[in-house]
């Protein structure tokens, strides 16, 4: 590809942005240009693509085809929210030793840490396992539900979506699940451990949550929520 051709494509892409077509799919063959977020190389994205596009230079994933993105992520987010409520209302582990039964829910565990004076750690656990996942789920519902039923994005939906993407690395429920398993083994020799309902709903939750995020099509969402619309 020659340099002038790139410029031509770029100007076409720029023109595309200003007189934005109503529907992406009405202009097949029109190519979109994106810069790779890892190495800044300009790559062309064909519009009617049904596959994964990798950066030609560093191999980063630039685009992944996700069919039915809004419907799927909306359904999965609803499911995740229900599982989240279940996981937080029931004890996840009970410890039996002699006559003692000690039950813990996620929130009482965090309170115990707080009472022991480990404020930073308890806040961190509260943030990464309760507040961030909750904010992500509510945020996704706020963005997706109006797109599905009202056809007009909710006010400030773009900002909410930016928050959701920026929070993504800080939701650590799947890591908490591994923590539960390690604690199970660690305490196994000390006392009888009874896994509660919450462990199972938590186990489902992390898969549903992961599925909800991987069926999300950010490219499509940014387009639909565009501030310039």
């Amino acid at each position: 590809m020659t340099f002038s051709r790139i410029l031509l494509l770029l100007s076409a892409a720029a023109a595309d942005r200003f007189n934005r077509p109503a529907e992406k799919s009405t202009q097949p063959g029109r190519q979109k240009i994106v810069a790779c977020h890892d190495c800044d190389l300009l790559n062309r994205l064909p519009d009617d693509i049904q596959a994964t596009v990798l950066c030609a230079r560093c191999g980063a994933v630039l685009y992944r085809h996700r069919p039915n993105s809004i419907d799927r992520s909306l359904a999965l987010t609803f499911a995740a929210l229900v599982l989240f409520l279940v996981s937080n209302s029931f004890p996840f582990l009970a410890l039996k030793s002699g006559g003692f039964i000690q039950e813990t829910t996620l929130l009482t565990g965090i309170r115990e840490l707080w009472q022991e004076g480990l404020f930073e750690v308890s806040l961190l656990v509260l943030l990464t396992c309760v507040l961030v996942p909750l904010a992500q789920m509510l945020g996704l519902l706020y963005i997706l539900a109006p797109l599905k039923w009202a056809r007009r994005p909710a006010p400030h939906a773009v900002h909410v979506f930016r928050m959701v993407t920026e929070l993504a690395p800080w939701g650590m429920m799947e890591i908490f699940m591994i923590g539960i398993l390690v604690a199970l083994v660690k305490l196994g020799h000390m006392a009888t451990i009874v896994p509660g309902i919450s462990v199972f709903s938590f186990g489902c939750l992390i898969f549903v949550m992961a599925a909800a995020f991987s069926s999300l099509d950010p490219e499509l969402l940014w387009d639909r929520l565009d501030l310039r619309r």
Partner: protein
Amino acid sequence: MNKQHATARQLGMLSCHDCHLLVERPHSHAHSLCPRCGAHLHLRKPNSLARTWALICAAIILYIPANVLPITITTSLGTKQADTILSGVIYFMQSGSWEIALVIFVASIFVPFAKLLILIFLLLSVQFRSTWRPRDRTILYRMTELVGRWSMVDIYVVTILVALVKLGAIATIEAGPAAVYFASVVVITMFAAESFDPRLIWDVCKEDV
């Protein structure tokens, strides 16, 4: 590799950090916002090298008390036992559950250490304008970014143990001072990985910056 490929920077464009929209580079130095998502526009992450170095230094300092001080203090029938992260791993190995020992070792000792080394290596390679295998270094960066959060496992284990084991005289587990230090190492290295801009790897070796 095709030599005629151009980067956004060479053509006077930049891509938004949040929504990856390709935008014409603004002429003034004033802060401009992405027309699509409203995020602040930067050509590269601001002060990437200095920020990453600062965070790495902080993490290295905190890494020492995190490993030297006890992370859990177990009181069992009157005897107190303080465990550091490493002694916990050794305990698991001796008691036969080597899978758990492996998980804790990889998550709490190997990953944070490897992450610090890799970030230092990437920073040095950018600062010395290395042209060595930019693609592999980018992959290395992507891996560090992905894997770093898993170090939190140990903090969660401690949380659960502390909350669960409250059996009065029979057994109690308290969290030791290392928990706070270790948690801050994990959080700070996550910020460090986030503030490093992998495009710098390519800038210094492909373009004359």
